[in-house]
């Protein structure tokens, strides 16, 4: 029976090619537009590290200008720390399982042989970075506590850089030249791109590539490697000190700090620890504002940092309304089409088809239009995502359309089409056959 209904549906669609094409096109465009914005929104608002996001906490301390308006929420406090606070905390014996302190810098990679040197972003961090953020290794592994303490010249590099410099071979133990310094490669990271890049999600940087070079923070500080990214100061560094030393000891914030806390008790104890730390600093004349410290887990932090932009929310809302117009358009066209089918329906009813059978048969036709619309929509969403990828910088990881999305597109279109077609189909199946047959 189903096959017969399907054949009937196909021939009915072929009988009104323009109207059917319009319906498929409208549904397709609506689904395509909505899927495009939804995919971007979904990936932006996704959990970048699902199995650990509830135990990783970003740390904020309110060291700012006492003359500024009072702090009410985490959004009023700088997202970064001063080097001195981060360094004090990372060296302290705190209730946290692990802590990491880091900043973004850069260097020129000088390849062996004749290849031209090139610039790379570098993350200066601690050994705890890799296990905390569950970084997958292809070769070797992270450096250890000993290298951090020894301020050693070791480096972990990304797979992409390893392919470029060492042809993808196991480069553990090889030499890496950054500027005029030499480092020993201890590990190669496999493909790793948390989305958003939560660990350093400064405005506009949440969707950038992960760095390809990681070196011990102490080493970078010794080499006076400059910070890349936001630096904020509310007070000039001490001018009597050499510039970099003055900067490190200043109230300028430029580092990121995370703590791993596994239980609610640990969270509470850590928060107390931070508060006490700030009280201690107040005693030596720093932190002149009322005491305010914040810890936010990954998803809370993504909210504090406003990782999903308002523009994306506006586009999502508008594209949903757009889809609604397309569905309304399809209902209108279906109404017209099924009202025109009165004669055929009457004939089938007169020949003994029940209302139920007429209803089923026409619903299959509507469903078929939905599936076709969904396919068109998935194709258009793919094109839409390519367009989005070209228009925004740093969106390349956001715009992949996977099988789940494809099936969702088709299912959504079919559901919308069937819902849209329900009323016209019901109407046509209720028509009294006698009246319509007479006019033929």
């Amino acid at each position, binding site marked *: 029976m189903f096959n017969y209904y399907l054949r009937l549906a196909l021939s009915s669609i072929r009988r009104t090619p323009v109207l059917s094409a319009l319906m498929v096109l409208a549904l397709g465009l609506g689904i395509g537009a909505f899927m495009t914005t939804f995919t971007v929104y979904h990936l932006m608002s996704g959990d970048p590290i699902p199995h650990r996001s509830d135990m990783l906490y970003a740390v904020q301390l309110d060291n700012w200008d006492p003359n500024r308006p009072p702090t009410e929420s985490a959004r009023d406090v700088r997202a970064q720390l001063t080097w001195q606070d981060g360094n004090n905390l990372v060296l302290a014996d705190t209730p946290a399982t692990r802590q990491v302190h880091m900043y973004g810098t850069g260097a020129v990679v000088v390849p062996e042989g004749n290849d031209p040197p090139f610039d790379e972003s570098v993350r200066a961090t601690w050994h705890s970075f890799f296990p905390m953020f569950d970084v997958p290794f292809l070769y070797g592994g992270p450096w250890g506590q000993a290298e951090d303490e020894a301020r050693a010249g070791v480096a972990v590099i990304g797979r992409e850089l390893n392919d470029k410099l060492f042809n993808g071979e196991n480069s553990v133990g090889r030499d890496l030249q950054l500027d005029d310094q030499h480092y020993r490669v201890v590990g190669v990271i496999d493909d790793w791109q948390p989305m958003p890049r939560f660990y350093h999600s400064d405005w506009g940087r949440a969707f950038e590539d992960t760095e390809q070079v990681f070196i011990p923070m102490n080493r970078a500080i010794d080499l006076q490697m400059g910070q890349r990214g936001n630096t904020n100061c509310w007070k000039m560094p001490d001018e009597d000190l050499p510039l970099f030393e003055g900067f490190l000891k200043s109230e300028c914030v430029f580092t990121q700090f995370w703590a791993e806390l596994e239980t609610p008790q640990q969270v509470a104890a850590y928060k107390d620890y931070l508060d006490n730390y700030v009280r201690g600093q107040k005693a030596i004349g720093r932190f002149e504002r009322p005491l305010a410290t914040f810890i936010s887990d990954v998803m809370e932090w993504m909210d504090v940092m406003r990782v999903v932009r308002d523009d994306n929310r506006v*586009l999502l809302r508008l594209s949903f309304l757009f889809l609604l117009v397309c569905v309304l358009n399809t209902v209108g066209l279906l*109404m017209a089409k099924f009202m025109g089918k009165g004669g055929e329906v009457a004939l089938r009813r007169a020949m003994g088809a029940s209302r139920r059978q007429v209803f089923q048969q026409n619903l299959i036709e509507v469903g078929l239009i939905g599936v076709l619309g969904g396919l068109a929509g998935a194709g258009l969403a793919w094109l839409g995502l390519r367009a989005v990828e070209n228009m925004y910088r740093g969106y390349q990881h956001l715009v992949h359309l996977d099988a789940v999305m494809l099936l969702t597109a088709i299912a959504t279109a079919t559901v919308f089409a069937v819902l849209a077609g329900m009323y016209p189909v019901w109407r046509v199946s209720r028509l009294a056959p006698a009246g319509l047959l007479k006019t033929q």
Partner: protein
Amino acid sequence: MTDIGPIFRALLQNKLGTLLIALQIALTLAIVTNAAFITQQRAADIARPTGLDEPNTGIILTTIFDMQLDQMQMLRDDLETLRTIPGVIAATVVNSVPASGSGWNDGLYVDAEQLSNESVNYGRFMVDEQGLDTFGLELVAGRNFEPEDMVRFSMEENGIPGVLVVSQALADALFPDGDALGKTVFNEVGGGQPMRIVGIYDHMQNAWPSSDRVDLTALVPVYMLFGGGMYTLRTEPGQLPRVLTEAEELLSKNRSRIIDYVRTFEEQKRRTYSGDIAMIKLLGSVIAVLSVITGLGIVGLAWFSVTQRRKQIGTRRALGATRWDIVRYFMVEIGLISMTGLFIGMIGTIALNWFLDTSYEVGRMPLWYLPVGTAALWLLGQLAVLVPARRAAKIPPALATRSV
């Protein structure tokens, strides 16, 4: 207009169909006008002048990796090289350029008693004596930098500039009485780092075009020596592409540093505004596609109703209705539906704008968008219905007699 009665009664026969198309027109109006409003706003943001000679300005970023290199000598050599390329009007070394999304912001105090929250925030651009000319700024008062004003800022040497040249907007913000020239301001709370205002230029934006202090900027005579240099140059009209190619070739000769990029200022500006440009393109496509869908929807429905009413139309023609009468019937019909839809749509448009503004701060839409959007959609309905209506007008009167 005696047709309206029967047309209206005919519409009531198909209440749901009429309501659907009216709703579709209403939603289309709400989306299209709001999208047009946002698009217009973003375009206006982008069109604001940065103050630079935008089409003739280029940027070259270099990074050194031989830390033993004499950076000051390199800067002098590079600037010398750039300034002698034919077609270059001026070249300077900068810490950043306007509207690039990355730069230096600082606070100025007019006296030593002011508190730290009373400073005037400004975008600080570190340039040499050709900075003013490279950015294409017009000096409205005072003087440009002299070579002896220049200081060095590096890991070893924390040179503090003694003078600065400010934008008219910054001058007014610091000294509302208009007597900024010659005054001393302080870069630090408590009267630290005094600088004398020696010149005032017309206008230049800071690095962050979305900031609310975008026009408060100043030039300071500083050589920044931190591992490389960002060079900016201005050329005679039309010379920029050739000059940039030549500049890249010449600067590449120094092998102890790399050239990160060579780009035109216009490209830099496009990068900074990429989010807004994308929004314009996406919303532009929404407007276009939605109008087409709604237009085609009207065509489809009217086409179908023509097919349905062939006999009725034939009869009307046989009874003396002209072709124009038939066309007019459909135009009045869609006109009535449009009116209903556009009325609901106007309320919807205001509601949607209110929602988008309170939730995402897109701004209040000026009221003139409503009549313009309404007129455009009204016209769309009339144009869309013309196609099927003209087909209806071609139905021969003889059809009335044929199938009876």
